[in-house]
Every structure is written in structure tokens, then in C-alpha cells.
């Protein structure tokens, strides 16, 4: 139980940091951490396939695409950075409040969903899922990372030079 609480708090903090930080790159890192924590929670909830998808899509693929997109944008000047920081805190001060209130309310209200869906996959060994069942996806994600690395070299490194 204690580990679940720690994971949920970590998830909350990582997602808050993702939204509150003004550096886009840090925001991407925050999102990847959020996804990684969410994947652990999914594993603990016996949804290993969903966990693998979450880990690979949000912590892997989407992050690479975000970094590539960010490489098309311009760096902020120090003055604009300060201004943005003030604006961001002013805009989103209520976010932690809303999340905490929603969490408390949801803990009392438990909606009953009557949809009948097939039982999730009962494979609990993440290694089996990664290396035997979803190994083509794993290879695809390695290739995405390679493409992202080329993107960063072409769009970032050569620009600096």
C-alpha cells in the first residue's frame, strides 16, 4: 500500500512539473517520467500489455517526436524567460489545488461502469512481453530513437556549428 501511495505522489509531482516548467525540453522529460511511473502502476494493476504500450509510446516515441518538434523552435531570451515564468505561475497556481480536490472527491465517488470487455492478457512477466511478444515494436522504437538522434544531429548540432 505504501508503495502505491509513493507512486501516486510521484506521478502527481512529475505531471505537475511537466505542466509548470517553462522549458519545453524539461517538460518533455517530465512527461517521460510521468509515463514511466504510470507504466509501473499499470504493471502493478495487472495490465502489463497496456504498461508496455504506455512505456513505449509516451516515454519513448512521443518524447522523440517532441524533441524533434522543439528543435524547430527558437530559444527564448533571458528577459522573455523571466516574463514567461511569472505568467506561468500566475496562470497555473490553481492546478495543484484542483488535482488534490479531484483526488479526494474521486476517492468517495466510485462510478460503476457496466461495459463488458474481454479480460486483459494474463502475462505478468514484462520480459516475456518485451522480448517474445512485442519484440518487433521494441525494434521499431530503437529505430525511432535512431531517427531522433539523426534529427538532433542535423537540426541542433549542425546549427550550432
Amino acid at each position, binding site marked *: 500500500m505504501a508503495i502505491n501511495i509513493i507512486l501516486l505522489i510521484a506521478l502527481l509531482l512529475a505531471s505537475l512539473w511537466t505542466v509548470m516548467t517553462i522549458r519545453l525540453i524539461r517538460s518533455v522529460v517530465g512527461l517521460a517520467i510521468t509515463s514511466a511511473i504510470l507504466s509501473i502502476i499499470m504493471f502493478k494493476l495487472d495490465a502489463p*500489455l*497496456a504498461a508496455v*504500450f504506455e512505456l*513505449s*509510446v509516451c516515454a519513448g*516515441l512521443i518524447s*522523440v*517526436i517532441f524533441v*524533434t*518538434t522543439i528543435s*524547430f523552435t527558437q530559444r527564448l531570451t533571458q528577459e522573455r524567460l523571466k516574463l514567461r515564468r511569472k505568467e506561468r505561475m500566475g496562470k497555473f497556481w490553481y492546478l495543484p489545488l484542483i488535482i488534490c480536490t479531484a483526488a479526494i472527491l474521486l476517492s468517495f465517488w466510485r462510478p460503476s461502469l457496466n461495459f*463488458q*470487455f*474481454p*479480460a*486483459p*492478457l494474463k502475462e505478468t512477466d514484462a520480459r516475456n512481453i518485451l*522480448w*517474445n511478444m*512485442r*519484440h*518487433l*515494436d521494441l*525494434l*521499431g*522504437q530503437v*529505430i*525511432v530513437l*535512431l*531517427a*531522433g538522434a*539523426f*534529427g538532433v*544531429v*542535423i*537540426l541542433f548540432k*549542425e*546549427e550550432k556549428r
Partner: protein
Amino acid sequence: MPSLLILLPLSFLIILNLPFRDILQRASFWVVAFFCLFQSIAVALHPFIFWSALPDPYGPFFSFRLSVDNLSLILLFSIGLVSFVSLVISRYTLLDNKQRFNFLNLLLIIVIGMNATVMVTDLFSLYVFLEVTSLSSFILISLKKDKLALEGAFKYIILSITATLAMLSAIALFLLISGDTSFVAIYGALGNPQHVFFSKLAIGLFICGLLVKSGIIPFHGWLPDAYSSSPNSVSVLLAGIVTKVSGVYVLMRMVVSVFGLNQALQDILMFLGCLSIVLGALAALGQTDFKRMLSYSSISQIGYIVLALGCGSSLAIAGAAFHILNHAIFKSLLFANATAVEEKTGNGSIEGLGGLAAKMPFTGITSLAAFLSTAGIPPFSGFWSKFIIVLALWQAGQYTYASIALLASVLTLAYFLILQRNVFFGKVASGLEGVREVRVGLIFPQVLLAVLTLGIGLFAPFFLSNFILAAGNILK
């Protein structure tokens, strides 16, 4: 055996980037050229190798669940061919060694992405390899790093991410209702009457995403900018094959083999296809930039494929598959012509040019072949695919759509006549007297593609009976 088409380019990619890469850079062109030609020739001459379920000898990790049918074979052949043409063009247009090497690496990655997309049998794997293709495309478009290229790449990335989000949400819903993401499991789950709402929502979201990736009107906003602002070798690749694999092919595969066609989906696809044919051609009429005109022409031609898909009969699907192959050939040829003209005149506009056929005979004649094939004039290959599509529509009782598809060829003729008159026919424009034909390296891909479009047209009965009509059998 199909795994080889993923593992071989991946091995080349790794070898080319080993520490002693300065030496390898010199061999990189030939390595990539070898692979592209190997893929096309192997698929064309020995399709049974790819059909066979021989055990992969590379160990269990590299034994992927892939499937190849006639539709996949047509696409695999086109991927090899267009990538080869793009590679040859890059050798003469990307003059910076570093930039050319980056292009070669990204070309290998995009080929892996497209090959896998064509062969996978799982929706999540399909998504992963679509992302491989899209990500490489963004970077390739922005290779020049000028304002227009970055703007084109940015538009593409934003619309592509929107499409991705829709598709990803759909995959989550499919996983919910079927418990798995394999095509077979989803096909089975869609028949369950308990999940009608979620099924419809997921199918709608997935198809919307694919329509954005196909560049069909009204989802076409990114396409003209991306095609026209890219380096020439990238334009060939994008217009020739990337959009077809990541948009049109996936749409065909999913609609025909997994989702199944119903009346509402047929109506939507046929309407959007027809809209794209007409509006794409009308927009092409108003363009003054060579590559931009070809971009709108692409939208119009993709419309024919979507229209045939909407018709849904076996003959229509075969016609759509045949038009994918033909469009890959003649559109790549037209972009190769545009490259030759731009190389020699330094101008991408079709205004202020004229009489170039006399100065650049190979470019002039091959552009005429591409133009006649696009407009559906016999004996070029484009005639046969359009003929099959119109015939299938007529047989299915879709007389209005068949008539529009037929009459839209007049619009295609009109914008290509404007192009030919402004660029190749008439007197040589002042200032262009000294223009000469492009070097042999750039003539070669143009002649190769022109011979292919004429050859496939002349021997159409052979191709139809051996490859194309069998592609229509993917209908469940």
C-alpha cells in the same frame, strides 16, 4: 524471409555508422543503391520467396509475425524503385557530403519504416513503424533548413501529430474491445454487437488519422508545402511513395482487411475521393510553381485511389493497387523532371521558361510520357489503372462517380498542357539559350521511369493477370 527487408537495411545503417565511417561514407551510396535495387528486383522476379513461410534463420528475436500478399508486393516493389530514384537524384542535387550522408541514413530508416508498415499484422506495430516513417520525413523535409523547408516540416509535424493522436486513441479503444491489437483479434471483436459504439468511434478516429496522412481534401493542408519546400530528392520520395504507404496503403489495408466496408463508409470514401480528384486538379490549374502544381496533382491522383477503395469491389481494389504503382512511377518521374529543370534554369517557377524540350530532349520527352500517363492516355500505364477504376465504378452502378472520374481527366490534361506549354514547348525563352541537358546521372532515373510507365502500359495484360488483379483478392 520478409524479415530480411527490415533487417538488411538496419544492418547497413549500423555498418555505415561504425567508427571508421569516413571510409564507409564513400561506399554508402552503392550500399543503399544495392539494397533498393535488390528489394525491387527480388520482389518482382521471385515473389514466392516473400510468400513462403520459411523459418527465419536469425534466431527467435528476429522472427517477426509478418505477412505479404499481392498488395504488399506491389508496395514493396514501389518502395525499392522510388527510393532508388530518390537516391540517384540526391547524388547530384545534395552537393554537401555531410548532408548527403545524413540523407542516406534517413533514407535507410524510412525504407525500414515503410517496409515494416506494409508487412506487419498488428495495429500497434503498424503505429510504431508509421512513426518511424513520419519522423524521418520531418527531418528529411527540413534538410535544407531554410525558412520554407522549416515551415513545411512544421506544418507536417503538427498535422501528423494530430493524426497520430487520433490513431493512438483508436488503438486504445481497439485494445479495450478486443484485448489485443492484432488485425485478426480486432476483426473478430468488431463483429461483437456489444461494442458497436466503441467500434464505430475507434474506426472513425483511425480513418480520420489516415485521411490526414493521405493528404486527402479537406485534410491536405500540409501536403503542398511539404512537397514543394523539400530538397528535390526528398520530394520524389514523399510524393512517390511515403504518402502512399503511410496514408493510402494503410487506409486500404485497414478498411478492406480489418474494418470491412459498409454503406456509410463507402459513401464517405467515394465522396472524399471525388472531391480530391476535382478540387486537387482545379487547384493545380492555378499554380505557377512546378513542384506545387505536382503536389496538387498528387492530391487529385490519390483521390482516384480513395474513390476506388470506396467502391469496394475486387476489381476496384485491384485498380486502386495498380494506380498506387503507376502514380509512384509517373509522379516520381515528374518530380525528377522538375529537378532537371530547376538544376538547369535555377528556377522552380513555370513562368518565364519555354522551349526547353529543344534544349533538354530527354527531360522533355520523359516529361511528356509522365504527363500522358497521369492524364490516362493509352498506351501508358496510367490509362490502364484509371480505366479499371472507371470500369469498376460503372459495374458497381456508381455512374455519377464514374463520369466525374472520367471527366476529371480533362482537368488533368488542362493543367499539364499549361505546364508543357510554359516549360517545354514553343520558342526558347530569352536567357535560356545556353541551357543544356542535365548530366547522365540525372537523365538515367528519368529514362528508367519513362520506360517503366510505357512498358507496364504496353504489357498491361501480363501485369494485370500476374500481379495486379490478384491484389483485389485481399477482400475478406
